[in-house]
């Protein structure tokens, strides 16, 4: 039985974990680095994709690429940033402490991931506006404003996949390759830049990746077509990744406790 005090303490602890995620993000990425390096990089990256779309397929290509590029901005915080959440413990040597803590490591990682999710949304909004203006896509940008909640769903699914891929980084020193692979898979297979139906194998892989169905929903909404089914599929994909992430982290924790091994060493 849980007493009210115990429940309150759990909430307090959850709050501290989430807050810690933000503090850690700030320590890793102080404001001057965010303003001088991270945001400009994302803006340039988005403009690059839009111009590449223009070179490949003219004005229509540029518009298509802008709609997709905004979603791929989320891969930085949602996939790469999220992978750093457990990896930080690897480098700080603190995983063994998480194992003996009151809050299960899985929940600690989920809680600390909130900061990465929030920052990925902020980054997306910055690139959305700045790159929209710089690349001359301001009309598309205005059309997309009412559809931003759809991008929010994509942000959630991206972070869910990020948590699942992060769990693969545990026990290996391959986190950079793992999250890079995940980022490029999303860029390539989600239909952000290559229209569906161009290369069937990409569509098959894309169907279980974040952003694929969400972007189909956004494009349908832009064309005044029904979008709810695709958006629901996007949410379902996200839920799938979240369950996988939960299972993988929990299984790893149990194995570490059972074998006495520290998966992070």
């Amino acid at each position, binding site marked *: 039985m849980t007493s009210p005090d115990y429940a309150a303490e759990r909430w307090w602890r959850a709050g501290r974990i989430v807050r810690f995620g933000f503090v850690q993000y700030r320590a890793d990425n102080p404001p001057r680095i965010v303003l001088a390096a991270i945001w*400009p990089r994302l803006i*340039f990256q988005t403009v690059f994709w839009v111009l590449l779309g223009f*070179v490949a397929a003219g004005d229509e290509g540029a518009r298509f690429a802008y709609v997709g590029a905004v979603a791929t901005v989320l891969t930085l915080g949602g996939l790469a940033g999220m992978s750093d959440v457990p990896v930080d413990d690897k480098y700080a040597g603190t995983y063994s402490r998480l194992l003996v803590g009151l809050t299960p490591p899985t929940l600690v990682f989920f809680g600390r991931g909130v900061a990465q999710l929030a920052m990925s949304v902020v980054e997306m909004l910055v690139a959305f506006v700045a790159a929209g203006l710089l690349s001359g896509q301001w009309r598309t940008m205005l059309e997309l404003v009412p559809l931003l909640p759809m991008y929010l769903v994509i942000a959630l699914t991206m972070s869910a996949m990020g948590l699942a891929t992060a769990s693969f980084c545990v026990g290996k020193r391959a986190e950079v390759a793992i999250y890079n692979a995940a980022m490029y898979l999303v860029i390539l297979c989600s239909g952000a830049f290559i229209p569906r139906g161009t290369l069937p194998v990409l569509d098959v892989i894309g169907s279980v990746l974040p952003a694929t169905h969400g972007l189909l929903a956004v494009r349908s909404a832009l064309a005044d077509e029904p979008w709810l089914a695709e958006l629901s599929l996007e949410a379902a994909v996200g839920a799938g990744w979240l369950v996988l992430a939960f299972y993988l982290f929990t299984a790893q924790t149990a194995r570490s406790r059972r074998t006495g091994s520290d998966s992070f060493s």
Partner: protein
Amino acid sequence: MTDQGRRVLRGAEVMLVCARLQMAEIRTAWIIIGVTIFQPIVFLLVALLPSADRSAEAGTRVAVGVALSVSWSATAWGSASVLRRERAMGTLARALAGLVDARLIVLGKGLGASLLSTVWALATLAVTLVALRQPVSLANPGWLLLGFAVLLASGSAVGLLIGSVFVLTRYGPQVTAFLTFPVILLGGMLIPPEILPTPLTWVSALISLRWLQEYLITSAAGSPNLAALGYAVVLTVGYAAAGIGLFGGIVDRSRREGTLDLT
């Protein structure tokens, strides 16, 4: 042999040893897979598949553009990892304050990083082009090799400039990530400089990759644009001179103020 001759030989030896060391180092670093395998495949597919023009000419233009973009990313990340290991192992101060000029170390390591990653990226591109059955033209292999040799020299010279940043700040990875896309965007490799606003074409003209792109495409078509190669060489010499000056200055300052390994 004169003292001068011995010094030059010694310098070349240091650079070679450092190049080999760096190649061994990046073979174990996973980022190289991201940059030389994932990135070329993705760039090539995204640039080619939505396009209606799949001629050998378009294929060559995109393939050269992707090769140069990837080479640039690899140079940026490679130079980033040049001093990262020194910082991680606590040997940065020793490398920068040793008997051998630290610039030879960084130049040699930059050369190793550029060489290995360019070869890997070209191999990835070749396999992907074959898989896509995309024709390309390769009229002048000798001229193309010359272009890639200048590319490697350019990469090492820029590596020295980027290496300076890593002595100054611990946020090197973020700074490198920031540098990657503007150069790919403005370097005229995948985006023709003509579609950029006029002031930006000036920036584009200062990037050696823009001229190498022109030289390599014209070489592949059979009539190399040697003036473009000349511009690329001049810019490379400029980068090297700036890098030598800047890196030397920054290292001197760090040594004078005793801030090596502390930033």
